């Protein structure tokens, strides 16, 4: 399997590998898998509650080179974006950037799923805390 230079670069120097505090209300965690190959990926985001901007992102992927590169790239892309803009990232953007061949498309799907799942988890935490009666309007 010939990997593109960009994939190799992310694979050799993955950006943002690591863990954020899963319990924090500012952190969203997405854990997703690709049943095609049995690879798993966890992506976490830390969102500023005032600005809705993703201030930090970390990932950990047990999978192929393309999945590692896709998640590494995904964390790079979403950092500094607000959550709505991050949700607009499509797997096809990743495919293009990394020049992934057709058999590796599912690896990029995994990264898109991970972004969505992490943001989904974060949103769930937000609405749960909003439902709590005591929160005062912060302005």
């Amino acid at each position, binding site marked *: 399997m010939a990997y593109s230079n960009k994939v190799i670069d992310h694979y050799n120097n993955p950006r943002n590998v690591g863990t954020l505090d899963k319990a924090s209300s500012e952190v969203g965690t997405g854990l997703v898998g690709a049943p095609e190959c049995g690879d798993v990926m966890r992506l976490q985001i830390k969102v500023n509650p005032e600005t809705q901007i993703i201030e930090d992102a970390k990932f950990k992927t047990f999978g192929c080179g393309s999945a590692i590169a896709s998640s590494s790239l995904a964390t790079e892309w979403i950092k500094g974006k607000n959550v709505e803009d991050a949700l607009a990232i499509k797997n096809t953007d990743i495919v293009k950037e990394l020049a992934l061949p057709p058999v590796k498309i599912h690896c990029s*799907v995994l990264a*898109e799923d991970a972004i969505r799942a992490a943001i989904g988890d974060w949103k769930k935490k937000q609405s749960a805390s909003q439902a709590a009666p005591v929160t005062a309007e912060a302005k």
Partner: protein
Amino acid sequence: MATETNIPTGNAVATEGASLCWSCNAALAGNAHFCPNCGKVQPSTPIDYFEFFSLGAAPARKLDIDLPALEREFYRLSRKLHPDVFARASTREQQWSLEKSSQLNDAYRTLKDPIARTQYLLELEGVKLEEQSSAATLVARTSGEEKKQVVPPELLEEVFELNMQLQEMRMNKEMGEDDPAIVSDLQNAKSRFETMLDDLTSELKSYWNEWDATISAPGSSESDRIRVRDKLVDLLNRRSYIRNLVRDVNQALAG
């Protein structure tokens, strides 16, 4: 080859799965590889692997097959289709026997392996295993809803945790030069994963039986069929994760 354009493929009018021998006109069963009357090899036709081995045609392909019988049939046909046997036969008979040999090998390789066999059946049933996940992503993207993972989230959690542990053991092993404690950790993990895999295999076999019973039950409906089919799909999906763990732990032990 221009000289071969007049091949009478399938020669006669095939009536209800039956056809006639191209050489002697004797009636043949639909998937007969050789004529029972004159013994000549018959034209190769694009049939599925189950049919190739007479293990039931659509929609009644059985999953729980008799492996020793399959193996015997494989060896019998291999001998009969061997190129040496056709050294003096016509070009087209040589051609057919070659095509059938390669079908035979593909069919045997697929059917003798429980997982490959199940995957193959699902493919014939129209399930596109590789496309499920991206299809679900597309739904999530357009609806804004959370994507439905094709395996249960608890399993993903567990697999992720196991991967973490395994990675730690691997790193320790690399640094600790065959520390017997780490090796035994890895060996424990290995037997744990293998047990998980074995459990899934027995579960698979119980679904095979359910499938076989469903397709042959007189009153069973399309929805019964789909229900069992989806159980098979679900199991294969879960299994890919466990298979990777077994692979990785073996690698760690070998490396």
